[in-house]
C-alpha cells in the first residue's frame, strides 16, 4: 500500500480521525489472487500460501478465522480445541465441496408419482424400515453438531463439513419419513433408537463410533438397497442416501487415519470405543447391530425375500446375512485403511465369524 495514498486519505475533508493502520501495516497476508479451476473456486483452492498453513496447535481462543489479522482485545472463550489432531480430516475440504455440489431434494428428486401399490406385507415392511431410519438418521446430525462450537476458526473447513453432514442427515430424516407416509401405511413402531451415539465425549470417539461403525454399517446397507427396494422410488432414495453417507464415512475414516498417524498412542483407547460399539462391553445396546436385529431385521427379511411365506423368509434372511457380511467386511476394510488392522483379532465373535480371510 502506497504511503502517499494513506496520507492523502487522512488529509481529505473528514479524514482527520482515520487511523488506517490496518491498511498501512496489515498483519494478514495480502496480494492473493486465487482463480477458479475446473471445479470452480473451491475451499481447497483458497487454502494456499499462508492461508493454507494449518497449525498443528493453536492458542487462538477467539473467533478469529485462519489467516485473519489478530486483535489484542478480542473476546476469548477458552472453549475452543487447540489441536489439529482433535478434529482434522484431510478429506474435509474435498468432501464439503462435493456435498455442496451433490445436494438433492427429497421433494422433487424422488419420483414419488411413480410409486406403485405394493402388497400390504411389503408396504408394511418398508414403512417399518423407514420408521427405523427416520428415527436414527438425525442423531448423526445431533452428534457432530455438539462439537461444532469447539472447532477453531483455524480449522474452519471441519465446521463447514459438519454443517454439510447435518444438512444431509436432515434430508435423510425427511426422505424416510416421507416414504413411510407416502403409500398409505404411515409410521409404525419406533425402537430404542441411536441416542447412545450422543454419549461420545470427544471428536475422535465420535468418528470411531458414528462414522467408522454406525454410518458405515448404514452406508453398506444403503449400497445394497437394490436388493430390498421395491420400486424405482425406493432404489433412488437409497442410492442418493448412500452417496451422502459415503462422504460422512470418508470424513470419519480420514480423521481416524490422521489421529492414528499423529497420535498412535491412542490406539488402545480407540479400540475400547469399538469394543463398546460391537457390543463387547455389555450393559447397553450394540450400535453395530442397529440394522441387524429386531423389527428392522424382520422388515428387511420380508423385503429381501419378497413376502412372509417360509420360503420367502428363508430367502430374505439369507440375503440379510449377506448384507450383514458385507457390512462387517467393509467395516474391517475401513479399520485397515485407518491403521487399525489389528482389530481383526479383537472384533466381537459374532462379527468376526462373518469376516472374509485377510487380503495380502
Amino acid at each position, binding site marked *: 500500500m502506497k504511503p502517499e*495514498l494513506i496520507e492523502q486519505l487522512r488529509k*481529505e475533508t*473528514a*479524514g482527520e480521525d*482515520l487511523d488506517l493502520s*490496518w*491498511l498501512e501495516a496489515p498483519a*494478514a497476508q495480502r*496480494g*492473493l489472487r*486465487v*482463480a477458479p479451476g475446473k*471445479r470452480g*473456486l473451491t475451499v481447497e483452492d483458497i487454502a494456499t500460501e499462508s*492461508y493454507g498453513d494449518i497449525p498443528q496447535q493453536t492458542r487462538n481462543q*477467539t*473467533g478469529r*478465522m485462519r489467516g*485473519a*489479522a489478530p*486483535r489484542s*482485545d*478480542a*473476546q476469548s472463550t477458552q472453549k475452543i480445541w487447540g489441536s489439529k489432531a482433535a478434529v482434522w480430516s484431510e478429506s474435509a475440504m474435498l468432501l464439503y465441496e462435493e456435498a*455442496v455440489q451433490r445436494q438433492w431434494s427429497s*421433494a422433487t428428486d*424422488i419420483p414419488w408419482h411413480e410409486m406403485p401399490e405394493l402388497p400390504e406385507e411389503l408396504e408394511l415392511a418398508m414403512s*417399518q424400515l423407514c420408521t427405523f431410519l427416520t*428415527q436414527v438418521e*438425525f442423531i448423526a*446430525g445431533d452428534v457432530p453438531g*455438539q462439537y461444532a462450537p469447539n*472447532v477453531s476458526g483455524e480449522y474452519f473447513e471441519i465446521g*463447514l463439513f459438519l*454443517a454439510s453432514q447435518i444438512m444431509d442427515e*436432515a*434430508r435423510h430424516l*425427511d426422505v424416510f*419419513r*416421507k416414504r413411510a*407416509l*407416502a403409500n*398409505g*401405511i*404411515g409410521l*409404525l*413402531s*419406533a425402537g430404542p433408537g*441411536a*441416542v*447412545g451415539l450422543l454419549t461420545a465425549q470427544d471428536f475422535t470417539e465420535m468418528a470411531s463410533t458414528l462414522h467408522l461403525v454406525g454410518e458405515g454399517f448404514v452406508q453398506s446397507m444403503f449400497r*445394497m438397497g437394490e436388493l430390498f427396494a421395491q420400486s424405482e422410488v425406493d432404489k433412488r432414495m437409497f442410492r442418493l442416501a*448412500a452417496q451422502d453417507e459415503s462422504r460422512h464415512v470418508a470424513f470419519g475414516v480420514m480423521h481416524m487415519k490422521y489421529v492414528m498417524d499423529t497420535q498412535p498412542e491412542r490406539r488402545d483407547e480407540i479400540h475400547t470405543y469399538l469394543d463398546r460399539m460391537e457390543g463387547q462391553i455389555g450393559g447397553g445396546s450394540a450400535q453395530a447391530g442397529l440394522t441387524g436385529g429386531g423389527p428392522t431385521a*424382520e422388515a428387511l427379511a420380508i423385503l429381501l425375500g419378497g413376502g*412372509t411365506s417360509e420360503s420367502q423368509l428363508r430367502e430374505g434372511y*439369507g440375503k440379510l446375512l*449377506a448384507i450383514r457380511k458385507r457390512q462387517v467386511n467393509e467395516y474391517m476394510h475401513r479399520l485397515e485403511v485407518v491403521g487399525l488392522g489389528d482389530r481383526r483379532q479383537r472384533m466381537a465373535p459374532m462379527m468376526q*465369524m*462373518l469376516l*472374509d480371510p485377510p487380503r495380502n
Partner: protein
Amino acid sequence: MADTEAKEELTAAPQLPPLPPLDMSWAKAPTERPPRPKIGEEGLTLRLADHGSYGWAPDHWPYENDTPRGAFPAADMGLPAPYTIYEKAEVWADNAADLYELAIKEQWKPATQIAWNSIEALPEHIEYALDQIFSNISEQQYNSNAVLMGWLKQISYGYHEVKLYLATQSFDQARHVEAFRKRALANGGGLGVQTPGFFSRAVMASFKFTELIVYTNIIRASFLLALCEQSDKLARSKADRQLFENTANDLRRHLAYGIEHLKYYLQTGPQRRAQVKNWLDRGEVMMAADLQRDKPLREAFILALGDTVAQGKERLRALRQAQLEKYLLTLEAATIYDRRPLVQHRLQEAVEAP
C-alpha cells in the same frame, strides 16, 4: 450399486442359522394410516406428507429418545437423550416446514455459481476495504453457525420441522463463511482484521434457544440483510452482486424463522416479553460494542462506500440507519411494536455517529 453387483454379493452369503419365528407385532402399531398424498408441482413436501396427526406438533413432547412424531413408541425406549427442549414454544415457528423446503430449493453453490472471473482488479485501498468487510461477514457467520449446530442436540424429536429447518440454516451459514472468504482471497487482497467479538460472545453465551435466535436470526440477520440489500455501493463486480443477493435471499429465510418463532414464543406466553426485552437489551449493547470498537471495519466501510472520505462517512451513516430500521421492522413483524424508544443508547449512538 448395480442390481447385478448386489446379486453377486449373495453368492458369498454364509450359512443361515435357524430362522426366528415370524413376529410382525411392529406391523400392528396403532398409528394413523394416512391417505396417499397427491403430489403437486412442488413434489412431495413435508407439509403434504405430514398429513393429519403426523402434522400436529404437541405443546409438550413426552418422549425422551429419538421416537419420530407419529410413530408408536417402544415399550423400552433405551437411554433417555440429553435433549432439554420439550416445549413447543421454545423452538416452534409455523413456517419451519415451508422454509425447510424453500431452503433446499434455493440452495446455491459458491464454487460454481458465482461469476468469479467477473472480478476485475480494483485500487488497492478499495480491494482491502472490501476484503475487510468480507472477512467480517465470514467470521460472524462462522460464529452463528458453530453455536447453532451445538444447539441441535438440545431439541427433542417432537419438532422435527424445526430441526430440519435449522439444518438448512446451518448449511446456508457454512456457505456464507466460505463464499465471503473466497471473495476476500480472489482479487489481490486477503483477510482483514478479526472482529472485537462482543456480539459473537453473546451468541456463544446464550442460555436459552430463543435467546440465541434473538441474537442470530433477529439482530445479526437483520443488520446483515440490510447490508446486503444496500450493497449497490459496495459491489464492484457481478460476483460481488451475486454474493450479496444470494446471501440476502438466505437471510430472508433466517429472518422469517426468527420472526415466526419469536411471535409464537410471545403469543403463547405474554409474560415472556420481559425476557425478550432483556435479550434485546443485551444484544443491542453487544452489537454496539462491536460497531464502536471495530475501527478497521468502520474505516473499510468509509473507503468502500464513498468516492471521498466525507461521502463514505455519510453513506456509512445511511447504512447504519437502514440496518437499525430493518431490525426495528423485524421486531414489529414479531409483534414487538414498542422497541423504537427503547433501543439501547449505545446502539443509537453507533448508528447516529458511526
